């Protein structure tokens, strides 16, 4: 009458099989849940993907256009820094001429020495010439970049 004490040998085997099946199914469900349903974590529409890539470029946009063969100047970054932002640029002009700093140290040793603000004027000139170098370099880079077109 009492099934739990039934001595038949098939019942425990059937129970073990059922438990094994349940365990396997549970493992599958857990794996499925752990994978997040397979959702793409970063869905990227084609159009916005291109925009994101462009936005991550340096100011002048350094990337290549495989289809058109056009590349933008790198770092305009540099590039981009390029056009006219030379306020913080170093005063070095790249010339082999005498240093302003050396001569400034001797000011006041001779009555014919020009006014002290000449130093500032020459420092301004050096900065401007450095900015000019930056612009010329940027132009060279721009025009060396294939404009590209469709083929």
């Amino acid at each position: 009458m009492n099934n739990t004490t039934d001595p038949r040998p098939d019942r425990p085997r059937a129970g073990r099989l059922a438990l094994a099946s349940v365990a396997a199914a549970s493992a599958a469900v857990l794996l499925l849940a752990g994978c997040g349903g397979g959702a793409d974590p970063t869905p990227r529409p084609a159009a916005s993907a291109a925009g994101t890539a462009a936005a991550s470029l340096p100011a002048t946009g350094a990337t290549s256009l495989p289809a058109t063969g056009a590349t933008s100047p790198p770092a305009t970054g540099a590039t981009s820094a390029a056009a006219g932002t030379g306020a913080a640029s170093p005063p070095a002009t790249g010339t082999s001429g005498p240093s302003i700093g050396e001569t400034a140290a001797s000011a006041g040793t001779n009555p014919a020495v020009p006014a002290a603000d000449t130093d500032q004027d020459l420092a301004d000139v050096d900065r401007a010439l450095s900015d000019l170098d930056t612009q010329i370099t940027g132009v060279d880079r721009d025009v060396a970049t294939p404009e590209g077109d469709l083929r």
Partner: protein
Amino acid sequence: MTPLRTRLAAATIGAGLVLAAPAAAWAGPLRSPSTPQTSSPSNASSPSSSTLEALRAKCLAAIDVRLPALAAARADVANDQHTTAEHKTALEADIDQTAARLQTLQGEIQADTELSALRDHCHSIFQDNRVFALVLPRARLVVGADTAGFAGDKLSDVAGKLADAIQKAQDAGRDVAQAKADLDAMKAQIASGVAAAGAVPGDVLGLTPADWNANHDVLTPARQSLRAARADLKVARDLAVKIRNELRTPTTTPPAPSSPVSGSPQA
């Protein structure tokens, strides 16, 4: 079914569930992002449609590169302290008009359903704008020319101060022949550099994309002028420093700059 077969069958089913479920879960949703969201009304299943979409993506990418470059150039022009107001206005207008054309093309390209129309719009990105070939280098050339003009003005100020100093030295009985000759040379270099740079804006501001299409070297004379201006101004700058050194040399000191005369700061 024997107990052994039953166990094997259960184990196979369990293993199959474990392996197949994640694979099936990943395989499904990854299909959706591969569908381009470029607002294409066409069916992406045919070969011609895939060509259309590929071209559309390339053209939109070309615009996406150019618009930020134009924005950066505009900001640089606006923030530059040496560029004249007149040139800023002209450059900003040029950049704004180019950006507006590209934005219009962007919308047209996104809406194109015919390959021929798409091709025309894509060609227009390059043929009618010439961002990298003309617009951006032109802005740099004009900014550079005005920067050279600023440097020339500063050097002229320095030349005036040096002229006063030379006069004082002459009044004090010093030999200033070399300093005077150097000052004359400096002034000539300034004049040459300023003239070379001053011609650049007028040479390039009126150029159009059609001009560049007809002659890819249309910017070359302006580039050469700006290089010449830079060379002249650097020579002038070096002459200014040389004159200063000449004037600071004590009258009893021989002209050789390496002479270890006592008190000479140039030693």
